[in-house]
């Protein structure tokens, strides 16, 4: 008998006492903590992201480019890699200030290791945990992009921030195109392995800056997002 058939036979024999079909057992629904309001959710998100020692900045849609440029300068970054689908509006100012390298030109991990920073969009934010989730679509790039460079600037629209974890899991549920790779990020890389003392920055980016884009009456950030190449 193959290992597969034998293990399946073993686990079926082991639960021979169970006569109910799959999916018929008791399942307690997992209930979201309800959002007290959009402003409060955004405030909690910013508070929790900052609590894990990431920097949180707020921006109107028109100011995103300037904030990205300022942040890169503040952190002494000379080169930055960007995903192919990133909003071009965000990059106009950066391109005149420092070396911007498209994702496709930075092919290997060693190449990425020589770049100082990465700028991406994001998929979902979670207020109760201070988490950002990347689903690595064209405006976020492949997974290695946000892993190897030491500074990650992550732009998130206010309407992408949900209040609690179950809602985020729901939004990220795979669609007809199948599951996407996901990276959940809560603060910069950290360890508590030495005497339980928290140290920020082991292998992933040691600096994480989250830019929250709040819509104004002059234009919805969603329009900017969709304007970028898909």
């Amino acid at each position, binding site marked *: 008998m193959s290992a597969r058939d034998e*293990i399946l036979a073993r*686990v079926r024999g082991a639960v*021979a006492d169970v006569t109910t*079909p799959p999916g018929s057992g008791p399942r307690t629904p997992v*209930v979201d903590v309800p959002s007290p309001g959009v402003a409060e959710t955004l405030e909690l998100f910013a508070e929790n992201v900052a609590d894990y020692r990431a920097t949180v900045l707020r921006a109107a849609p028109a100011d995103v480019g300037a904030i990205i440029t300022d942040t890169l300068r503040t952190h002494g970054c000379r080169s930055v890699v960007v995903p192919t689908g990133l909003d071009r509006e965000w990059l106009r100012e950066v391109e005149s200030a420092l070396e911007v390298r498209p994702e496709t030109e930075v092919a290997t991990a060693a190449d990425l290791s020589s770049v100082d920073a990465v700028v991406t969009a994001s998929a979902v934010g979670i207020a109760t945990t201070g988490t950002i989730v990347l689903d690595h679509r064209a405006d976020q790039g*492949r*997974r290695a992009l946000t*892993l190897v460079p030491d500074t990650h600037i992550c732009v998130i629209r206010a309407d992408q921030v949900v209040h609690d974890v179950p809602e985020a899991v729901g939004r990220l549920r*795979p669609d007809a195109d199948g599951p996407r790779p996901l990276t959940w990020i*809560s603060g910069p890389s950290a360890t508590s392995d030495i005497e339980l003392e928290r140290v920020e920055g082991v292998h992933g980016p040691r600096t994480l800056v989250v830019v929250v884009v709040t819509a104004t009456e002059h234009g919805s950030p969603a329009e900017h997002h969709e304007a970028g190449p898909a």
Partner: protein
Amino acid sequence: MTPPIPAEGDPAAYGSADPTAAPTVAGPVQRTSATFIGMPKFPEAARVALANTQQRRNLHHATHTIRAKRAAVVDELPQWEALRVAGAEAKDEALTHLGDYLEQLEANLTARGAVVHWARDAQEANAIVLEIVRAKEVDEVVKVKSMATQEIELNEALEAAGINAWETDLAELIVQLGHDRPSHILVPAIHRNRSEIREIFSHEMGKVGRPAPSDLTDEPARLAEAARLHLREKFLRARVAVSGANFAVADTGTLVVVESEGNGRMCLTLPETLISVVGIEKVLPTWDDLGAMLQLLPRSSTGERMNPYTTMWSGVHEGDGPQDVHVVLLDNGRSHVLADRLGRQALRCIRCSACLNVCPVYERTGGHAYGSVYPGPIGAVLNPQLRGTTSDVDKSLPYASSLCGACFDACPVRINIPELLVELRGKVVEEGGHTAESVAMKAAAWVLSDPKRLAGAQKAATTAGRVIGKRTIRSVPGLGAWTNARDLPTPPTETFRQWWVREHGDEGGPR
């Protein structure tokens, strides 16, 4: 608002409550791995650990720190109890229909380009991994911290075949470079303090790669920086990585790895080939089950609202990450545990280690005395179930507890560890494991089952009491193990029955 919580000990929570249900058939037990063969029983190993005052100090500090962090973030969630119930139910649903969910998981993984392998035991799992690594013609792999690969001693198997397995989690690196064994599920180097770690890094890093900086101090930030530099060259050149998985979602074919440092992301993203060794009990029925699990695990484990990094992948993702993806589904005694209607709840374990951090026994002895990669309260129930109760250490583990119940309260998936410990003690006694105790219990049963014998025994006891008087009994011949830490109460000079007869004569009182 809060959904009802099932009564504690409700058998419906673990499987069928139907008394006419078919008998279960247990798979084979796990063979004790080479490292732990001949381990002394827990009290002997614990005595050695207790004499190590440095280790006791490190453990006290670490367990109390993490305990307080966990309590604070659990208190933030008013719905915590409902989440625990949901987590337990998700695991029970998967475990009681494991065959169906494993087949679904396999089908979804295969459809997305992963190669699924099945391993009956440790030896088979190691052989599968070795064959994949050999086909890639490499002499090293990078590893994400994984309990399953520790359990099967994969590193030892790879090294015997001339392949270096580099642990990349900071604590695992400390353990590996120190030629040591992990002593905690989450923070395996919890028994080491900063100056010990500095010594290990300074002496050992240079032997296997980039040496530690010559001016290395014992500041945790400097030590972490040394690890970052040492490991980066390994991450950038590695072609094969080995991981475990915290969860395997059946209905999407998604594997989940939860971590803090980014070493996991490095291993799961950069190499060409990724091999994940996953215990068959890691299956979750549906994607939505992550909604509870991703709250329960980080808050219980590191005491954070969310761990810094979680990676999810479903087979091969074109142009992103490893393009050669293997998943090894491992039994190794799990189908044996599953057959026990009460004991199967131990397979819900999500390896958070909350039970270790609240355990008064673990806090004092540390992890090594448990004789397994699974220490603490969960190890005390899981090891004797996975490996059977034949060895000295496995026979003694159900007794490595004061039954205070803190572990059950802390468990995010409501494993009733004290209940299982009592059950396993009964099993050990039935098998004749603790002979002195079972002889004493049999003698007591013989005496108590007959009023004449009881009266005779009481007479003997009160006679002894009058002889001993007010002296304290410090030890009793033949009961050395019991009395070496306890004084025995002096027997009374008169029993209640004797008092009644003296005061009231035979005037129809109690007989």
